[in-house]
């Protein structure tokens, strides 16, 4: 029995070390991404910018602190939020292919944004109407889902998924109507928005998203062990003392907050919510106590790197970051399919 205990300790230490490595890697990736971009900032200038000493040309200062840093941080926060929501939803639905889009929040947010573009309101409230409308749209979708499902407490998870599918279809048809009859310019804007972009990042957005991330992450973190227990099946989890309806409600609320805020500020960005939790599980095992922070770190790094590509590959123009995440996500999934088993979910 002692050797089993020791083996287990060794395993845990190894996994914790990996998590630590990921945590250490994040600031490195952030710094590297902040160092690169369409505007060339030399290494000595970078050091001066970071240490706040020496003379720096005004453009470099503005680019680094007012344009790039908020953007890199926003990308990290968006990636982290999407990944966390993905991990939570995958745990709740006990399905490694689950995506926060299942609860309708992405479609609802898209509808909010599309409406703004359709009526040409995107500049209103100093440009803030757009994210507010998107966030409101996301929430409305989740509330409607709750109504369909007679509250998240009742019914099982299978019912919830079906209700989500129905909701997404309905929102999709409304979206289609607006897309179909939009003016050309509005349509271009809608298309760009739905492909995702971290370009409109400024410090207020960063602070706001950080707040949402903290709230969403706390909600999920509280439910880490209950989500583990849920993997035995909902009935068995209830027998273990888990309040299944509460876990379901809190997980969905957390996912709605995280995805709603991230989508409101950066448009719809796909695949991070699917890929990052998967990678976290591959590296760290199945315990949500590790998968949640792991997904957060991996999601942040992935999107920061994707955003780096988005703003450098076709400089001085930009690619929509959603294109890059899809380009990376697709092959990743194909690779996953080729791996032996461990698909039981």
């Amino acid at each position, binding site marked *: *029995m002692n050797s*089993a*205990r020791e*083996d*287990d300790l060794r*395993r845990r230490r190894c996994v914790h070390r990996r998590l630590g490595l990921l945590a250490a890697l994040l600031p490195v990736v952030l710094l590297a991404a902040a160092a690169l971009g369409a505007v060339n900032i030399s290494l000595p200038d970078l050091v001066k910018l970071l240490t706040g000493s020496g003379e720096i040309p005004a453009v470099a200062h503005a680019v680094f602190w007012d344009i790039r840093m908020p953007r890199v941080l926003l990308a990290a926060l968006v990636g982290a939020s999407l990944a966390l929501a993905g991990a939570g939803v995958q745990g709740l639905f*006990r399905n*490694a292919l689950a995506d926060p889009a299942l609860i309708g929040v992405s479609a609802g947010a898209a509808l909010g944004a599309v409406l703004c573009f359709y009526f040409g309101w995107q500049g209103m409230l100093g440009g803030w109407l757009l994210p507010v409308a998107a966030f409101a749209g996301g929430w409305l979708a989740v509330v409607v889902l709750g109504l369909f499902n007679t509250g998240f407490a009742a019914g099982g998870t299978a019912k919830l998924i079906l209700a989500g599918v129905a909701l997404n279809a309905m929102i999709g048809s409304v979206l289609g109507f607006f897309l179909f009859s939009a003016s050309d310019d509005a349509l271009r804007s809608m298309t760009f928005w739905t492909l995702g972009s971290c370009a409109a990042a400024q410090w207020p957005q960063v602070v706001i998203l950080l707040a949402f991330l903290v709230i969403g992450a706390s909600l999920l973190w509280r439910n880490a*062990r*209950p989500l*583990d*227990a849920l*993997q*035995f*099946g909902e*009935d*068995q989890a*209830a*027998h*273990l*003392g*888990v*309040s299944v309806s509460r876990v379901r409600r809190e997980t969905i609320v957390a996912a709605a907050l995280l995805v709603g805020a991230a989508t409101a500020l950066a448009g719809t960005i796909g695949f991070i919510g699917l890929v990052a939790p998967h990678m976290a*599980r591959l590296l760290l*095992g*199945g*315990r949500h106590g590790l998968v949640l922070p792991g997904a957060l770190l991996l999601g942040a790094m992935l999107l920061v790197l994707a955003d780096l590509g988005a703003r450098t590959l076709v400089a001085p123009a930009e690619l929509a970051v959603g294109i890059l995440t899809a380009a990376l996500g697709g092959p990743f999934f194909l690779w996953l399919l080729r791996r032996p*088993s*461990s698909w*039981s*979910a």
Partner: protein
Amino acid sequence: MNTPGLVASDVALARDTRRILDGVSLAVQPGRFLAVIGPNGAGKSSLLSVLSGLWKPDRGAVLLEGRAIGDYDPRERARRCAVMRQDNSRPAGLTVLEAVELGRLAHGASDDARAAALEQLAKMDLTGLAGRDCARLSGGEWQRVAFARTVAQIASPDRPGVLLLDEPVSSLDPAHQHQLLGEARRLAAAGHAVLAILHDLNLTAQYADEVALLAAGRLTASGPAAQIMHPAVLSDLYGCRVMAVESAHGPARALVSLPD
């Protein structure tokens, strides 16, 4: 008054005009191993759902240690009453040890879940599998792990609990069937209240102190095992021929079921 154990009184349950349980009363007492047997579809698993507090009966009451089971906070209830269901999904990416540790979820963060889990694994002779991924266990191994987890859930130095087991040996080979049921019997002897739904007549006769017969939602008989495990009673219950075979070796007699 704090009557220990689990007591169901006149419990009835109906779904879509179908009567699943009809006036069932039974008691799972500390120190006793009660087996519930009956034909498929008799309502045994449903009875377990009601006894465990998962489902509310339409009529009647279930009392855990003298208190209505619905009044318990889920965690408090889980600390006193553990259920092992038949259909357990396997958590992806967890080791056996981690899965068994989850049995201690209701005991809170300060609990030494790992020690309790290792102890149960040792008792079930599963220590060698502690580091194995749950997905890579055979059906029988997984069932034994689930049992270890269930026992870990109510393991406590001073306070016995209630164990409800739904066909706990359905996937096990004979040796392991004896091992698990032997462990269940030891737990009963140590003061826990054990209820197991079983299909194997001989195992029932060997390990249960008391047997209750459930057919079509009704308790047709209950009493000491020696009394109930009688060919005539069983033939009636199952609707097929059950014979007792005397033998000079091994158990005094074996029950053999034959087609009608």
